[in-house]
């Protein structure tokens, strides 16, 4: 309010001009929209919304000033020194936040009543709110100064600002980032991810799913920095992240949220879930059942096939998650979208797998007893074994049929040839 009379006059003139322009606009739109103009409708609505506040200027000013003075008073109760103790800090923060709330309430009150107030009242109320907010901000800066933002793990010796300005020199930033991440992860791993396997090699982790559906995990899982390992985690997970894996095989049960894969090389991944997002990944086979098409970004040599493994309790698990009801149980694994391939023809970065062909090497069975791979060849072999068993039984029961059986066998072998 310390502006000189001349500048005040100038600004008033400018405001008057702008108001006149607005008035012209209002008038013209009103004329166009006839008496049922939208403005009127909106006003009517606002009246309903604010039926509690009465429609007169004095009433508005009275309630506005009451709140304004009360807020000012509450602010004046804060001592103008830095709040040192946690308790003082907390109480000051409480007062300040309620003051901010009051200010924003005043602002919205002004906005709501602006249709019956004259422009001067609107403007002066706005100004008061602005001043109030500025005052709150000022007090906040003095009494509860914000802590200087710094990444905790970088506190040791690394100045954040210098780091920030040197962001062009990428290599150093990258190494800094990665070390800080590691520290961060090691300090937080207990509560960050409900299940986490990281920094392993040559390990075989097996966690067979709990059988009753009530005991499914439903939490998030992360596997990070692992080489030459096998994970058999036949459980239900909320979200799964696979990061920096090399030469691994991962068997997962169901993933209720997204399965996020980043920086994975030469692995096999089996999973059922809603979303599959793959980044910076090379030479990985995915055997999945997905409710939506997978997306790949900066990948190459990927292959996608159906979720072809079987394990005890699989049906019950899938049923309890309801994954198969989505999309009518349609597996969208083939609908791969490549963000690095904008042409109409198929992206060269991935292929589809014919899982039924055992040559694709879906799995090395000897590696794992918990899961069984259903390939066409295996199904055929099982059927043949069954047949042979039946035939043998027949032979035992009925020696006369021996010749016939021999003939049949010949035919069979011809067929097979």
């Amino acid at each position, binding site marked *: 309010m310390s502006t000189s009379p001349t500048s005040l006059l100038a600004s008033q003139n400018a405001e008057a001009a702008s108001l006149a*322009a607005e008035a012209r606009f209002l008038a013209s739109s009103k004329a166009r929209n006839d008496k049922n103009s*939208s403005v009127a409708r909106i006003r009517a609505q606002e009246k309903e919304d604010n039926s509690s506040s009465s429609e007169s200027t004095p009433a508005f000013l009275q309630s506005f000033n009451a709140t304004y003075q009360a807020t000012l008073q509450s602010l004046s109760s804060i001592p103008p020194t830095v709040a040192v103790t946690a308790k003082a800090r907390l109480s000051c923060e409480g007062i300040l936040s309620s003051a901010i709330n009051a200010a924003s309430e005043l602002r919205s009150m002004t906005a709501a009543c602006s249709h019956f107030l004259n422009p001067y009242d*609107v403007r002066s109320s706005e100004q008061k709110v602005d001043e109030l907010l500025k005052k709150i901000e000022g007090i906040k800066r003095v009494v509860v100064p914000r802590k200087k933002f710094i990444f905790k793990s970088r506190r040791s010796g690394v100045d954040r600002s210098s780091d920030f300005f040197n962001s062009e020199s990428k290599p150093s930033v990258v190494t800094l980032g990665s070390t800080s991440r590691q520290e961060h992860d090691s300090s937080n791993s207990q509560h960050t991810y409900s299940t986490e396997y990281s920094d392993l090699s040559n390990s075989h982790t097996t966690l067979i799913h709990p059988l009753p559906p009530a005991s499914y995990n439903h939490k*998030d899982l992360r596997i990070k920095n692992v080489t030459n390992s096998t994970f058999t985690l036949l459980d239900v997970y909320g979200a799964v992240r696979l990061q920096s894996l090399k030469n691994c095989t991962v068997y997962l049960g169901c993933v209720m949220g997204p399965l996020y894969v980043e920086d994975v090389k030469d692995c096999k991944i089996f999973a059922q879930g809603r979303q599959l997002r793959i980044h910076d990944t090379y030479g990985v086979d995915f055997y999945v059942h997905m409710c939506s098409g997978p997306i790949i970004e900066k990948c190459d040599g990927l292959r996608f096939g159906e979720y072809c493994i079987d394990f005890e309790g699989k049906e019950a698990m899938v049923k309890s998650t309801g994954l198969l009801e*989505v999309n009518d149980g349609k597996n969208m694994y083939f609908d791969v*979208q490549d963000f690095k391939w904008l042409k109409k023809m198929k992206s060269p970065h991935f292929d589809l797998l014919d899982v039924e062909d055992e040559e694709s090497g879906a799995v090395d069975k000897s590696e794992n007893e918990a899961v069984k791979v259903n390939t066409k060849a295996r199904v055929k072999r099982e059927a043949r074994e069954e047949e042979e068993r039946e035939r043998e039984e027949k032979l035992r029961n009925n020696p006369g049929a021996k010749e016939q059986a021999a003939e049949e066998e010949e035919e069979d072998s011809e067929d097979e040839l």
Partner: protein
Amino acid sequence: MGLLSIIRKVKAKEKECRLLILGLDNAGKTTILKKFNGEDINTISPTLGFNIKTLSHRGYLLNCWDVGGQQTIRSYWRNYFEATDGLIWVVDSADRVRIEDCKRELDNLMSQEKLAGASLMIFANKQDLAGAMSTDEIGEALGLNGEKFKTRHWSIVACSAVEGGGLLEGMDWMTDDISSRIFMLS
């Protein structure tokens, strides 16, 4: 917001505003939009381009633009900045590893001139996950107390797009803030 755009708003028949929903990939932008609109969220796939939804909330028409967040298509975000009243920034609270990427992208947006007047609503999404960060942690990691945010109207709300908690509070704040800035004189 210049005078011209205010006048344009006054002229508009409805109280209409344009919201832009951005964030890293896998943050839950589309899920938030669909949940808010009452659609099925089970079949959502990663967004290849963008989704537009017009929502009606408390007498306002909200034109929501949900643009995909994959790294490759982030460079196209700027095509959507024009005439944006509010920016909704979605953060995957469970993703501690990429929070620095998240900060970098947000800082980048904040320095865009076309978004200078937009209110900023930050959704700390995925609070239903066990490892989710709190709003305080995210606020600190994104540097919300820094100079860049001094002059901006912003708010951060914890939410879970899957369960629906927090979404309404966030949208309420957004509409309140935009209306106090833009529809003042209507």
